[in-house]
């Protein structure tokens, strides 16, 4: 039997996006441990629907939906990421060395996504599990309708943070432009801070000295006519 190669390289200048995804999926199935994507040139949909374990290294910027609808993968983007990196990730680990655009880890269900720079609007929107860490700032509607999981934001957060969140936890070290409806700041227990610090350390990131902890206050869980002021903005 031929020995399975441990590594392989794919150059985006040489294969189509369709072939590239097939090669990654097939390589993962065959047990190849790592694939290096050269010249990604911010192309969309690089590494989609991969459900077998593999480590993907992107040697540059990626476009929309990198590492989305996937499970068991790990990936590093040596550049910036376009919209919705890690969208609907089931489990695994994605690290973006630069900034990420909007909708980072939208509807993620498990695993960890780390953006070392900043991330745009709707970061962690509809989050259904897992951990999302952002080294810089996040934009408008971050954590909108978040359902589970946690988000750690080391910089500032834009308006409507955690709006209509059902559950889950958001930690913000910097300023919050405006809390969303149904979200409230509560005290951060020391052991939780310690957990965040050690998680970040695992990614070579230094945790800020303190965080505000944001959770769902339950006000939007069931309609209450006495709370019209809140409901009129969301129903």
């Amino acid at each position, binding site marked *: 039997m031929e020995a399975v190669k441990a590594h392989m390289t794919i150059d985006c200048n040489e294969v189509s*996006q369709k072939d590239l995804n097939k090669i990654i999926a097939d390589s993962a199935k065959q047990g190849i441990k790592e694939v290096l994507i050269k010249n990604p040139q911010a192309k969309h*949909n690089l590494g989609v629907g991969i*459900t077998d374990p593999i480590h993907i290294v992107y040697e540059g910027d990626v476009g929309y939906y990198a590492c989305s609808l996937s*499970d068991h993968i790990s990936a590093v983007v040596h550049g910036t990421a376009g919209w919705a990196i890690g969208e609907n990730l089931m489990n695994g680990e994605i690290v973006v060395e630069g900034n990420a655009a909007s909708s980072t880890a939208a509807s993620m269900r498990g695993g960890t996504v780390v953006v070392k720079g900043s991330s745009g609007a709707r970061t962690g929107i509809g989050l259904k599990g897992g951990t999302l860490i952002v080294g810089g700032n996040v934009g408008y509607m971050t954590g909108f*309708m978040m*359902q589970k999981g946690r988000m750690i934001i080391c910089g500032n957060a834009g308006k409507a943070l955690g709006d209509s969140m059902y559950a889950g936890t958001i930690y913000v070290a910097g300023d919050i432009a405006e809390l969303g409806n149904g979200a409230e700041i509560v005290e951060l227990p020391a052991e939780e801070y310690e957990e965040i610090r050690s998680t970040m350390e695992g990614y070579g990131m230094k945790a800020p000295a303190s965080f505000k902890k944001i959770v769902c206050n339950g006000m939007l*869980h069931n309609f209450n006519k006495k709370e019209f002021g809140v409901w009129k903005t969301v129903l």
Partner: protein
Amino acid sequence: MENSTIRKSKVWSPEKIDEIQEKAELGRYRIRGQATKRQDLPSFDDLVFTPAGLSRVALEGYREKCDTQVVIGAGRVKRPLVLETPIMVAGMSFGAINSNAKKALGIAATRCGISTCTGDGGMHPVEREASEKLVYQLLPSRYGLNPYDLKRADAVEIVVSQGAKPGTGGTLLGQKVSEEVANMRDLPLGVDQRSPCRHPDWMGPDDLGVKIDQVRIATNYEVPVFIKIGAGRVYDDTKLAAKAGADAIVIDGMEGGTAASPEIQLDHTGIPTIAAVVEAAEALHEIGMKDEIKLIIGGGISNGADAAKAIALGADVVYIGTAMLVALNCNKSLYVEDYEALGTVPSACHHCHTGKCPVGIATQDPALMARLNPEEAADRVENYINSITMEMQIFARSCGKSKVTDLDPTDLRSLTMSATMITGVPIVGMGTTRKPYWANYDHSTEMTEMALR
């Protein structure tokens, strides 16, 4: 008191008074299931078929075939969706209806060679097992969405909106968020679930094109991708959905059913199905994609006449929700005291939103669910689907068509001016020229004018 002497106001009708007083109690808009109750909408009843006579030859029912098969995605994907009759069971979420209802619909659809659809809330294993052909919905909420179910689907439907609530997200009131529903949707138990109206990861038609590519990659380019849109700006939306790369476009007219929508929206948003199909077909013709991209039309389709007329106006397939539930037993005169407890009667029930469905369909309560036997219910749905298929064939054969989908607008005449304006189908009596036979007669008023001088 003698009732006949009491004058009732048209402006302040009993329904309006009831509505105001209910809102005065609720402190919010009314939310309910089923569909608009407006009585004044133009509908397929405003059209009739013009069967063959001497100018065309009708088909012999007993030996000449009238084909009903439709294939979606042929030449575009590896595994096109083959429907043995141009009917699909519309997406109705697990949550809105229960697993017994899903199972019954799946068994019936499989026997008839057509598809069912997950609706919101994820793919229930019971439904996957019962349905040979299952369409998987990808909605803004993304409840239960995962790449494994995506790969197990026979088509993927990206939902932009529904006819019953275009431009808004879904609602599932807390009484229906049972433990199983909460687990599948990753929600807290008993929460009033409001889902978003916009997708979390794309905004406009260009992004949607990238999204469709993503879905194709995740499904290995095997299955067709649909885009579903509540009927509003149908002409433009259809063109944009086609440009984004859909294999089929689902347009849901304003009569479209729901398990829970704001009543005000049911009655006052969207455009009726008869108008929607015409606009959508027109748009696809205009861009030269009418044959390649299939048009699926839903909203108030109840029998073979509605279905055949929708097809004659340009649809390839009809998409049926409420009528399938009715075939299951919705609104049937059983457990009448339970309808009464909800403040309604069989045939007028719209209480899916309450979770207390008297016949065990739109409920997660085990005691009520036990009222729906999936095997018996499947027989009824199968019979219903077969009946509509035969009804469609009656129209096609009598118009001289050997394929149901060969019906076209020339097979129709309109009964009302408004239907003529909406569809372009000539009004009855006007023939194909739309001019009366006496149009060229001498209309001179010379004699009258002379006499008046």
